[in-house]
């Protein structure tokens, strides 16, 4: 902050005042800021201010080997890191023309869906906490921890798994893992009614969430809203179905849709998605033992690996929406250019600003959390 900013000038004779949501504010997700101009308790304008989590990933990746970057990529989205490494691996595989063994593909889907469950459980807690109800937060995070335990068993990492590498996955599942996963899924399903009673059918919550941050289908398409937020406006649109990757076309699952387009609809869509993820995981538990084969395609010496020149754009469905990875190689040992399209780049900036405008001060935090905006994806 520069000294001249403390030089007083005339105060604007305006009836509006400014509030800063964040970066140090419980009403903001992560380290992010929203500068809000208010009149009374009505938001006149909101302006997103990012960059608090900026690390220059894209620059960093240009300076590291293809294989080194695997460790870097999950950190782009902290609450839901697994899709990042899968997407990066898939992009490199496309560049090299590597064929990923089927078992690896199934394992990746398993990882992605488990990650989706963790992200959605986290989301429920966050959304509830913005409205002053902390129980779902406490329960959700604790239940999420059980999934993280399985991650740890599978990959060694609780949050950042670094499980994938170009060509496949690093390890096969340990002994008895699928049983434990199955038991966990049973447990999560048995918990859902409790969450319903506490959270999803809570009258006060419905009162607050209904109509909050409402967008129409047209607006959602115009602002490039993707993922559950788009499905909450009634559009059945899912990358897993429209542009299938890995083995999603072999799996049976529904694409849940809500019509409201508001915070409540967005929450309910995620609740149904949680059930769908459980369903997908159940199918994986059933199918995985029958799929034999290697878990990784052979790759050249990773420390001197010249990936053929070319480009690849990989899309996949993370828990927040459409995740896009654009990777360019000029045939060197390091990527020439990596560009990440985090779904929150749209949700946390343009959509949030537009939805917050005209809403009430009480709703701002709820809108942000209900969009499940993830600031590190914006900042990169």
């Amino acid at each position, binding site marked *: 902050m520069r000294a001249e900013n403390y030089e007083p000038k005339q105060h604007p004779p305006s009836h509006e005042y400014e509030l800063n949501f964040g970066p140090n504010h419980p009403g903001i997700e992560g380290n992010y800021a929203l500068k809000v101009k208010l009149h009374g308790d009505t938001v006149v304008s909101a302006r997103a201010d990012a960059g608090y989590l900026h690390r220059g990933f894209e620059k960093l990746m240009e*300076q590291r080997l293809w294989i080194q970057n695997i460790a870097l990529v999950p*950190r782009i989205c902290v609450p839901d890191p697994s899709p990042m490494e899968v997407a990066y691996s898939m992009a490199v595989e496309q560049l090299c023309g590597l064929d990923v063994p089927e078992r690896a593909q199934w394992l990746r889907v398993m990882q992605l869906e488990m990650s989706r469950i963790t992200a959605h459980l986290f989301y429920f807690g966050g959304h509830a906490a913005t409205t002053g109800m902390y129980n779902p937060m406490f329960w959700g995070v604790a239940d999420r921890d059980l999934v993280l335990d399985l991650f740890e068993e599978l990959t060694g990492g609780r949050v950042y798994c670094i499980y994938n590498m170009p060509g496949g996955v690093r390890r096969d599942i340990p002994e008895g893992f699928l049983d434990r996963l199955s038991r966990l899924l049973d447990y999560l399903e048995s918990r859902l009614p409790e969450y319903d009673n506490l959270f999803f059918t809570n009258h006060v919550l419905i009162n607050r969430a209904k109509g909050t941050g409402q967008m129409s289908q047209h607006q959602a398409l115009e602002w490039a809203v993707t993922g559950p937020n788009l499905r909450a406006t009634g559009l059945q649109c899912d990358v897993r179905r429209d542009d299938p990757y890995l083995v999603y076309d072999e799996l049976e699952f529904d694409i849940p849709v809500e019509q409201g387009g508001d915070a409540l609809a967005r929450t309910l869509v995620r609740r149904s998605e949680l059930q769908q993820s459980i369903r997908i995981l159940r199918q994986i538990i059933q199918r995985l033992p029958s799929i034999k084969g290697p878990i990784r395609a052979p790759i050249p010496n990773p420390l001197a690996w010249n990936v053929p020149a070319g480009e690849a754009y990989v899309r996949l469905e993370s828990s927040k929406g459409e995740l896009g990875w654009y990777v360019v190689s000029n045939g060197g040992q390091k990527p020439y250019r990596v560009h990440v399209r985090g779904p929150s780049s749209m949700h946390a900036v343009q959509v949030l600003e537009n939805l917050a405008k005209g809403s009430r001060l009480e709703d701002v935090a709820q809108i942000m959390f209900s969009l499940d905006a993830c600031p590190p994806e914006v900042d990169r």
Partner: protein
Amino acid sequence: MKEFPVPVQTAEDPSVKKQSGNIFSNVFDELVRFAQSRSLFMLHYCTGCGAIELPPAMTSRFDMERLGIQPMVTPRQADILLITGYVSVKTLKRVILTYEQMNAPKYVIGICSCTVNGGMYWQSYATAKKLNDYMPVDLYIAGCMPRPEAVISGLRQLMEKIKIGEANSWQDYFKRYDYYLGNQQRLFGETWQTPTDIIGESKHYSLHTPETEGEHTRLLELHQRPLEPLEMRLGLSEKTEDR
């Protein structure tokens, strides 16, 4: 979890301090320190990715509240500033402001390797590499990212330090303000200024040492518009000015 040595020179040896005064005040001091160690409010500020392991540490599974640790919203209310992971330069400015606004005794814990040396972002132009250049750090909890158990274990260690009266690094910020300010100015430019008057505060709380002021603070005086507190003023005058 590993504790890195921190370049903090605690001015008084705490063992000396303990023996001064009469028994009554010793007991009182013990009580106060005990209460301070058993009631830690940490600031709700997610500076980086390590923040994702704080909710598990706080919630049902690991339950920090049984140690008397609970999250607080604004820097005024908080005791602990958890730097959870890398701090980008933009965040670092806010972190410094936040740190200066907190009420002492205040403790800084650097969680994740990035606070120690930049971690895997060591090449990044956007993140600070060494937190203790910019503010005194009480404790580092290394790891990428440390598990909730590690965080809690680190906090327990901090509690021990507070209990025996060793967690005094906050005084260092007042006593060697010039050093910290110099590092801040090097990164943010010479016109860097926070609205907090550290020199005035160090005098007010008698923590002023020769090292508090120096070439960097002189630079500050050069640029700074003094932000004196608004004292109540009784500027009465009997001028018959009719509007």
